[in-house]
């Protein structure tokens, strides 16, 4: 068992997670409505500093996915793992890791829930990351 002093996100501002429901934070343009994840201050379309952070629905539809068997550069987790693109009702598609190791557990079009889970542990810190979890499988 690894001793963990604190939990920290892999990057600040990606998701809400502490003492509240896990939700992705996107930036939304107050002028044109464009959304971008991770959040940034300039709108990709308007090219103006018109974005504000908003959270989106924690459930979306899985559009496509893949399974990776060899660790890519800098990866601190275990292989194999799966990743996919989820389309959220607000109209944004976001690439993320899923909770599943095998694609057999995934179906195009299935509902996925955003959860926050351990990414890796390093220097007594538990780094947490958003992941997509199939809604059908083991809901609360």
């Amino acid at each position, binding site marked *: 068992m690894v001793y963990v002093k604190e939990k920290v996100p*892999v*990057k600040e501002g*990606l998701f809400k997670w502490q003492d509240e429901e896990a939700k992705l934070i*996107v930036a939304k343009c107050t002028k044109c409505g*464009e*959304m*971008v*994840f*991770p959040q940034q201050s300039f709108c*990709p*379309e308007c090219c103006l500093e018109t974005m504000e952070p908003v959270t989106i629905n924690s459930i979306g539809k899985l*559009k*496509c*996915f*893949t*399974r*990776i*068997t*060899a*660790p*890519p*550069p*800098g*990866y*601190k*987790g275990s292989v194999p*793992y799966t*990743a*996919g*693109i989820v*389309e*959220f009702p607000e*109209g*944004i*598609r*976001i*690439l*993320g*890791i899923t909770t599943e190791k095998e*694609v057999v557990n995934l179906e*195009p*079009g299935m509902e996925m829930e955003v959860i926050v889970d351990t*990414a*890796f542990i390093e220097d007594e810190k538990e*780094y947490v*990351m958003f992941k997509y979890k199939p809604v059908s499988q083991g809901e609360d």
Partner: protein
Amino acid sequence: MEEVVIAGVGMHEFGRFDDKDYRDLGFVAAKRALEDANMSLNEVQAAFSANVYEISAAGHNVLEKLGVPGIPIINVENACASGASAVRLAYQAIKNKEYDVALVVGFEKSPRGFLPGAGYDRWQEWTGLGANPLYFASSIHEHMVEYGTTREQLAYIASKSHKNAVHNPYAMFRKELSIDEVLNARMVSDPLTLYMLCAPNDGAAAVVICNKKVAKSFTEKPISIAASVLETRRRGDMFVPAVSAPANPPYPTVAERAAQSAYEMASLGPEDIDVAEIQDVDAGSEIIYSERLGFCPIGEGGARAEAGETSIGGRIPLNVNGGILSRGEPVGASSLGQIAEITWQLRGEAGVNQVEGAKVALSHSEGAGGNSCVTILTR
């Protein structure tokens, strides 16, 4: 506005050459291109290099071996589209009479394994999102879901590539592979097996670009540059290393935009293209780009390929010398390799894989950063 032609092309073989450094590779390609153009570096007024993984003054160090005439040299890095981006700079400069002759040389010693440095943020790398094949696999998987593209069609593309490459002395892989062999190979990033993904490798290619009037004194086989386009992605393209995209962007993809600009510039359409080298960084990309470049309707790329339309002798032969899947991808050199190959096609010098009577050819390269280049050549 001057007319611009390709006066010479040259390649160093693509593969793994552990005893050579990037200077050796670039030197050979540039030397061959200059010889092909009946020129020396003394005739060249500006040079552009294309490379990703070297640090500094790489083009300068390559060209030193051919002479030190003091011409301006610019090193360009635009990922997989580096070479074609450099061609565009040379094309624009010659079109605008800045120079009469420019040399573009691309070269690469690719690192082994997953390519680093595509621009991922640290958190993407840490969590497993910093993997290029993940992007390629996701794109083609969505295509399969939406249009019924099959694993067999992906395998067909890879098998076609390897069959074409048998006769290409510049290709890394020159052995035929059956559809079953492709399907049964190690799964790298589902649905893409090992043979459906290109291998980054070592190599070099060079192109001499020239004012058409000036070219007459050097070569009897100039090939015209009818279009040279570089576009960059908008938000709809969730290209390496982007993490999100709008669900239904109301504008075309970057490949569509680059193709459209190039067709307009050349006053030609996709139906006029006789042969094309397109960014088959994986088998899925060949399918998707064959649609986006206008060679068949959206969604039909897999079926059309399987029906032989993109094979030699088919309606629109694609990657007839094996493409990136069989040549391998020395990143900085790759798109110049495409341009060399289609130049040989238009000259009728492509040997066994010659597309008979090819008059118009297209090269398409696309990669990290969302760069998309389309170059159209005519004879």
